[in-house]
């Protein structure tokens, strides 16, 4: 859970405890959730410890009386507050037996006054037929904090029963303030499959996007993906509302993982919504990703943006300071995200790309090796070339050794792709021309090899592509000789010479 939302949930709980409007405690938004929780628990202890010894005597007295009589006294005389305070000292079996004889309204009053931690054993045994009406009434009274604390101590079956009894709004609000949210994924998984998508489809209408995103964050990856797709399937105006809500609450760190887990098709749909194209919004998103190191979620979103907007976003990324770029490169490296980043770099303006290429994180030997391997593996030479063109010369000088070190299949793939267009072939020729003698010998050896298809590919290009033929003429002489030998071997020399003539 993001710190911001977690603090916001803790403020709601503390405000409920001290009977204040949450807005009056808004000044606590800079305090960590753990600190607010510690304070809340301390205050709860102070309140509930008052008169604890005396209340134990009340509880002891209850044990001696028959349950119907205890229920009558509780309802007509003691009232909800006294019952709630004494409950912690009552035998759980007796407490349940008494509770069954009390009306739901009264039980709700008692529940509101309980400290669930002190009556966990009782709550854990409350039968479902009591949970449902109490949950429904708590929802109706908008006692979400009470419900959130209560549900932390009931078994799964009761959680499902309670959540089923709640409206979408009450469920979202309750889940937001739930104690021990690690149970959420499991509990929500027990709901009917159509319930969750319905809740998210309604989040905009309910004005509860922060709560909905918080809920999504607590779902497992497997459950989150399909729900994230539901978010992307909403009408444009709903997504516009989502963007507006997330921007206002500054909770991009909550939305980005949702975007990251969507299917590519759904992400494209979402990214096409104009609200994401606003420069201010793009700036907020990239800043949030940089602060929370959410590059793995951000890059797929940038990739999915329409071309012009992607360029704008890419320039924003390039404008980050070197520390942030170092984190970006580290995240891309550890998550093997070069196929995501290279197209972004390609989308940058020349100036931005040059500035980024001048940064030290891109000059590391291992990073350069990964980039070259990723380009060859994923057919990204076209995306890599713009970066290669602007690398400082001493850094570019490292590339030939990395290319020659590629396994034969990747080298073949790289050359095949480079032959597709002149603007990406020329840098490749440049790389070959900058290879040392040993590297060139290796390339020549591959072309000479019967096993390799490199020779065939190059010969075909010379024969069939006049434009490529001219550029290939700039190959190192040793390589041109190897192509000739391959043509002799393959019986294509006449065709090759004819094409050259």
């Amino acid at each position, binding site marked *: 859970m993001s710190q911001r939302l977690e603090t916001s949930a803790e403020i709601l709980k503390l405000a409920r*405890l*001290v*009977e*204040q409007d949450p807005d*009056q*405690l808004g*000044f*606590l938004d*800079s*305090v*960590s959730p*753990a*600190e607010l929780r*510690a*304070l809340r628990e*301390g*205050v709860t*202890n*102070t*309140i509930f410890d*008052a*008169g604890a*010894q*005396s*209340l134990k*005597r*009340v509880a002891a*007295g209850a044990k001696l009386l028959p349950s119907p009589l205890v229920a009558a*006294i509780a309802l*007509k*005389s*003691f*009232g909800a*507050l*006294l019952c709630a*305070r004494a409950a912690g000292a009552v035998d759980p079996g007796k407490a349940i037996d008494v509770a069954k004889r009390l009306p739901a309204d009264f039980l709700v009053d008692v529940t509101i006054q309980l400290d669930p931690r002190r009556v966990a054993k009782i709550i854990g045994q409350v039968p479902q037929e009591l949970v449902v009406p109490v949950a429904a009434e708590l929802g109706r009274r908008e006692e979400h904090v009470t419900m959130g604390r209560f549900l932390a101590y009931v078994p799964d079956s009761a959680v499902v029963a309670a959540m089923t009894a709640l409206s979408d709004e009450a469920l979202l609000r309750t889940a937001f303030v739930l104690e021990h949210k690690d149970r959420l994924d499991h509990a929500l998984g027990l709901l009917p499959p159509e319930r969750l998508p319905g809740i998210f489809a309604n989040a905009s209408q309910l004005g509860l996007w922060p709560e909905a995103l918080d809920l999504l964050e607590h779902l497992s990856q497997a459950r989150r993906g399909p729900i994230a797709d539901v978010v992307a399937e909403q009408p444009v105006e709903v997504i516009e509302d989502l963007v507006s809500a997330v921007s206002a609450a500054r909770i991009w760190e909550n939305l980005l993982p949702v975007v990251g887990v969507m299917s590519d098709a759904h992400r494209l749909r979402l990214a096409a919504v104009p609200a994401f194209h606003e420069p201010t919004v793009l700036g907020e998103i990239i800043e949030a990703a940089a602060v929370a190191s959410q590059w793995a979620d951000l890059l797929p979103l940038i990739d999915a943006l329409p071309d012009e907007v992607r360029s704008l976003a890419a320039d924003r990324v390039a404008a980050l300071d070197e520390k942030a770029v170092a984190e970006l490169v580290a995240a891309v490296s550890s998550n093997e995200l070069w196929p995501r980043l290279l197209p972004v770099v390609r989308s940058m303006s020349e100036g931005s790309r040059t500035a980024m290429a001048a940064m030290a994180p891109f000059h590391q030997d291992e990073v350069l090796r990964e980039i070259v391997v990723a380009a060859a593996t994923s057919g990204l030479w076209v995306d890599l070339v713009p970066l290669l063109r602007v690398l400082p010369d001493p850094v570019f000088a490292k590339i030939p050794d990395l290319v020659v070190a590629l396994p034969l299949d990747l080298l073949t793939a790289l050359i095949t792709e480079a032959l597709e267009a002149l603007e990406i072939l020329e840098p490749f020729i440049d790389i070959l021309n900058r290879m040392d003698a040993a590297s060139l010998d290796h390339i020549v050896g591959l072309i000479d090899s019967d096993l390799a298809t490199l020779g065939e590919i190059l010969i075909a290009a010379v024969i069939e592509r006049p434009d490529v033929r001219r550029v290939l003429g700039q190959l190192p002489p040793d390589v041109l000789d190897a192509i000739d030998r391959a043509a002799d071997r393959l019986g294509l020399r006449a065709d090759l010479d004819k094409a050259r003539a």
Partner: protein
Amino acid sequence: MTTPRAELERHLGGPLSPGLAALSDADIDALAKAIVDATRSQKQALAAAIDNGLDIVPRVLRGAVKKALFG
């Protein structure tokens, strides 16, 4: 008289954590006041509940019963 910071420390069982300590004096005052008011209000509500809880006991016995039950 307990200062607002001391009031918060009492509930925390130790010194103020960094985030709380960084609050302005005005915010600390507001927070401590809200907590003091709430604990006082709860205390009064419990006392009233105890008194009401004895309504069914004959008036002459209430003192003894109250002492037996609530000390």
